[in-house]
């Protein structure tokens, strides 16, 4: 059973004219896999990632997470999946200003009901993992862009999610910052995590064996270099 599966997923946005952001996308991601999603702007990459992470619901088709069809779930159940099984990283860091790196990361566990001391303990571990063990008391305005994105990545790791979904995580970073994030994602993959990352960055996509290419809401290519090329 795939860890994550989209079955003929479409997404339309109402409006004049209506926008079809996704058009019949089917894809399976196995446990422990790392997948890059590439494609031009507006091709539906973010929409697909949001739907994979249950932040948004498809107009038609189904999303299965660890075999469970999410279409029957209510808002609260979807929130629980996001809070416990999914870790999001975005192009923007979304760190709370005036809040230390430690507490920003600990917030990744906020809605699981975990008591604060345990949250902070887990946050220290996650910050160590992204190489910021020495900066835990720094606030966002005292960190570089690359460091802020590593804090955001630690926040996406702190609850030990089944998937990490990253939407252009290096989009706001310089090359050094990007490099650090790429290395972290690859090493997390090596540890067995399931990671789906949207990227325009050639360096990332070339380092990742499986690539999904999107165009106009469709999946045009699903290349897996580990499988023999047809």
């Amino acid at each position, binding site marked *: 059973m795939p860890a994550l599966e989209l079955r003929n997923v479409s997404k339309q946005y109402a409006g004049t004219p209506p926008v079809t952001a996704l058009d019949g996308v089917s894809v399976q991601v196995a446990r422990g896999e790392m997948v890059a999603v590439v494609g031009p702007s507006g091709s539906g990459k973010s929409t697909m990632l949001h739907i994979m992470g249950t932040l948004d619901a498809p107009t038609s088709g189904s999303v299965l997470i660890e*075999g469970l069809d999410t279409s029957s779930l209510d808002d609260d159940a979807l929130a629980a999946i996001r809070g416990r099984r*999914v870790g999001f990283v975005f192009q923007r860091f*979304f760190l709370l200003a005036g809040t230390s790196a430690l507490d920003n990361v600990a917030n990744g566990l906020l*809605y699981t009901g975990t008591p604060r001391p345990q949250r902070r303990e887990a946050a220290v571990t996650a910050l160590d993992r992204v190489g910021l063990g020495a900066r835990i008391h720094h606030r966002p305005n005292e960190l570089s862009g690359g460091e802020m994105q590593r804090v955001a990545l630690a926040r996406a790791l702190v609850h030990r999610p089944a998937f990490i979904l990253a939407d252009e995580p290096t989009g706001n970073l310089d090359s050094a910052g990007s490099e650090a994030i790429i290395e972290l994602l690859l090493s997390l993959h090596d540890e067995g995590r399931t990671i789906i990352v949207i990227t325009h960055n050639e360096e990332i996509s070339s380092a990742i064996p499986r690539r999904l290419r999107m165009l106009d809401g469709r999946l045009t290519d699903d290349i897996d270099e580990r499988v023999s090329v047809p």
Partner: protein
Amino acid sequence: MTATAHGVTALPASRLRLAEVARVGIHALATRRLRAALSALGIAIGIASLVSVLGLSESSRSDLIDQIDALGTNLLTVTPGTGFGAGDSALPGTATGTIGRLPTVEEASAVYAVNAGVYRNDLVPANLTGGISVYATDTRLLETLNGSMAHGSFLNEAQRDYPVAVLGAVSAERLGIRDLEAPVRVWLGGRWVDVAGVLETFALAADLDRAVLIGDRAAEQYYDMDLEPSAIYIRVDRRFLDDTRDLLPATIDPENPEEVEVSRPSDLLEAQAAAEGSFTELFLGLGAVALLVGAIGIANVMVIGVVERRGEIGLRRAIGATRVHIRRQFLTEALTLAAAGGIAGTLLGVAATYSYSVFQGWRAIIPPEAIGGGIAAAVVIGAVAGIYPAIRAARMSPTEALRSD
């Protein structure tokens, strides 16, 4: 493999601990202190005005009631009725004696109109009376009215027979008499009369402030005096006040009891105290308007905050917050703002009441319901002001919130 599927279905629901609800709600305020303070200011001013209006009106009312009590609420005034056939406007000459014999009467003293003018000296034209009337009275008047002297002394038993006068507070002023350090005489009814004393104002008999008093026996001897009292002041045993009041007209004038009017001067003062209460309502209304403005201020700041913090809202949804959690966060924020405003306003109102009361020499009284009500009103306002922005925040689609910039 079914084990993993089970892993998702059996996920515990998202949950935000109670302590975290407060922390999350306060967090945004702590990072935007100035804005928070300014938006709570409206509520603070509204609550402060409500608390101080209630406190001050209570303090001043209680001060007035203390004063009235000190003057005595057991004073009754008997005057000739103003009804039909009351043309002669005097009480029977026997009235004072009759009243004095009532067992519930502690003290009684009458004044009699004297048909004479009073002037600073014999050169003032007779028509310039200055609005001063002359009354004859006995020696008990001061005590009956609980009055006091500004200068000199009241008429004594010996002075009752001689042309000696005591001046009401206003009369003394109009006659230009400030003190009695040198002997003072006034020209009263065509003869010089020595002034023995000047009265303080009478709280319960303001008419007498504009009077000059002379002894009743002297009046009979030297002036043309009506032997029928113009007014009788009576101190009554408190316990029988109402009974006595009902009895008086028939006792004084059995044939025409309706021509006798009995009044209780303290009623008038109490009516004044009550009238000040209605003034209070006006200020309460103004305070309520300030609160409304404060509520709009909080709602406004919250709506702006929701729009500005779309990214934060989207992120919270992404890390597992439900709509309820988001709604609760913004509601807590609005409630905290309003409660902070309410507490600050209450403290301000209490301080204002205390300092103004001290300044006025009043005993400061803050009604407990003003404090409780002030804070409760603030919290209710916070809830009302916060509910719409909170619902808006909760309804926001997470993806749109995350796409915003």
